[in-house]
């Protein structure tokens, strides 16, 4: 029994980590006033390019950097569209999701010459524990930056009242671009963790809605980095539970257990959202 609990704890941490990175990306983006529906696609881009770079250079570290870079690039695309062209952020994010998921599937055929999954590449191995610890450290750091530093105050002001930021002599659009690029980089890091941290390859659809679960965690955590991280641990727990319960409880169908994390996110979404308030200018072009 204690062995089972230990497995559950370890798996929970592993499963929560990629969602935490994406959720932290969601928090900083929404705090600056840009809803990042594209987190899912940015994770896929990060996961895919991490594998490509690791495949090309045999260095998982460069793979990790490539994943972060790819996420940041798509973050910039969203930021550019949202600030320069004032596009509907949700429409643009949906476009990014399609581009990234389709692009990765296309890339698998072009680069690895096989559909569905890449070849196996050099993975981070045990070093992925550093990334797990880093996720929690980053959450604490972001909490501090957002609430205890001038830059954090400015980012939050962009999400609440961008006109006030202009009055203070700053450019809210530039701040939003920084925030969304960081958001993409974090989502890319989460994706890279999935592909070359947990595993050693990219497979089609491997992000499996985690970017959206992260968005649910952002709302559940009321746009606070630490609270959102706690929500991610809860979702990670349900994902881990499904693995641990398989083969343990015969009367519960396997497919029902696989749906657990998504049902948990739905329940969380319904359970708290009526009583929370998003940043006032969240999703509003300026």
């Amino acid at each position, binding site marked *: 029994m204690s062995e089972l609990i230990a497995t559950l704890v370890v798996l929970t941490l592993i499963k929560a980590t990629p969602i935490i990175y994406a959720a932290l990306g969601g928090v900083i983006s929404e705090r600056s006033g840009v809803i990042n*529906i594209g987190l899912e696609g940015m994770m896929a881009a990060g996961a895919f390019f991490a594998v490509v770079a690791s495949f090309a250079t045999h260095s998982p570290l460069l793979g990790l950097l490539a994943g972060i870079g790819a996420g940041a690039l798509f973050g910039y695309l969203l930021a550019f*569209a949202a600030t320069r*062209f*004032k*596009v*509907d952020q*949700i*429409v*643009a994010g*949906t*476009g*990014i*999701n*399609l*581009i*990234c*998921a*389709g*692009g990765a*599937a*296309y890339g*698998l*055929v*072009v680069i690895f010459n096989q*559909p569905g999954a890449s070849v196996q590449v050099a993975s981070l191995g045990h070093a992925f524990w550093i990334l797990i610890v880093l996720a929690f450290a980053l959450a604490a750091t972001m909490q501090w930056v957002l609430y205890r530093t001038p830059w954090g105050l400015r980012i939050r002001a962009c999400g609440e009242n961008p006109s006030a930021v202009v009055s203070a002599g700053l450019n809210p659009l530039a701040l939003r671009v920084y925030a969304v690029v960081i958001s993409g980089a974090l989502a890319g890091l989460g994706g890279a963790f999935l592909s070359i941290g947990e595993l050693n390859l990219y497979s089609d659809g491997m992000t*499996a*809605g985690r970017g*959206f*679960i992260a*968005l*649910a965690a952002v*709302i559940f955590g009321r746009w606070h980095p630490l609270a959102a991280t706690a929500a991610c641990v809860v979702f990670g727990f349900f994902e881990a539970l499904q693995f641990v319960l398989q083969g343990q409880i015969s009367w519960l*169908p396997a*497919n*029902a257990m*696989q*749906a657990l994390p*998504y*049902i948990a*996110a*739905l329940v969380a*979404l*319904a*359970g708290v*959202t*009526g009583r929370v308030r998003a940043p006032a200018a969240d999703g509003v072009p300026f």
Partner: protein
Amino acid sequence: MTRATRMIAGPLGAVVLILVLMSLAMIAAGTSPVDGFTALFVGALGGRNQIGETLVATTALLFPALGICLAFRAGLFNIGAEGQLLIGGLCAGALGAVLTVPGPIGIVLMLIAGAIGGGAWGAIAGWMKARFGANEIIATLMLNFVAAYFALELVSGPLKGPLAAGAETAWLDPKYWLPTLLPATRLSIALLLAVALALVLQWTFSRTVFGYDLRASGEAPEAARRSGINLARLTWLALTLSGAIAGVGGATIVSGELHRFNTQLSPGYGFTAIAVALVGDLQPLWICIAAFGFGILESGGLAMQASAQVPKDAIHVIEGLIIFVLAARRYVATRVEGTLP
């Protein structure tokens, strides 16, 4: 620019841009664009069978796109059409497998079952939004995953056909198959149903109080609320109807093409339909044309993959880019004209 040239130049510019991007994707895959486009168009329109398959894809995209359009008009971003399509198909397939009534009645009952199934799936998100203020984008997306596992569980066990090898329901009696529209192809009269639905929706949006309420609550919710529109009820209703329309689409795929339900019902029609609805500018009649365009990409994409070795997934990248180009085009038009288009 005059209004007329802008109306033509905008979409034309988008089409040219998209063609250039597709050419680049083909070159990257090691195929000349000439070969690639030839394979695409011959594969989509080169003969009776190809045209039939293109129109089959058009129909499959048109239903969820119309559903998405209805929700969008109320300002609700329904990205759960994929799940609603699946549940609609599941309900129709499950019912069709056990029916013993005359053919036409059975087909109508199956379509109704699809509407109820898809509608119920949309209603969950609508209820969550109206009752708890839950974000409908995340709710509808999560429900896609739940739908996929739910359907897989049911057709692996209780609803699995007695003779079925894989996870699927029993085959339908041929009297419950939707009549064929184009002989010797898989195209059923579902296409006519979808176009008729588009006409009804166009009329509803532009000529009825409900259509006005939808638009008012989407564009100016506060004004709508103060004018006496019950926003919670409208939210719930819009997402339910949106799901029901997608669900009917799922039922027509089961009754018209597959003649049974399995979980491979849709290769992402519900997601492509978002692009279709946006390209069609949320106008049902334009959406019909957009669905045909995307139908060409869907069926031609398969042919292109087979004969020119360009992966079909490139099509999804193109769809994403189309969404981007169109979203930005509004802003450019605003800048040029000085007024909102």
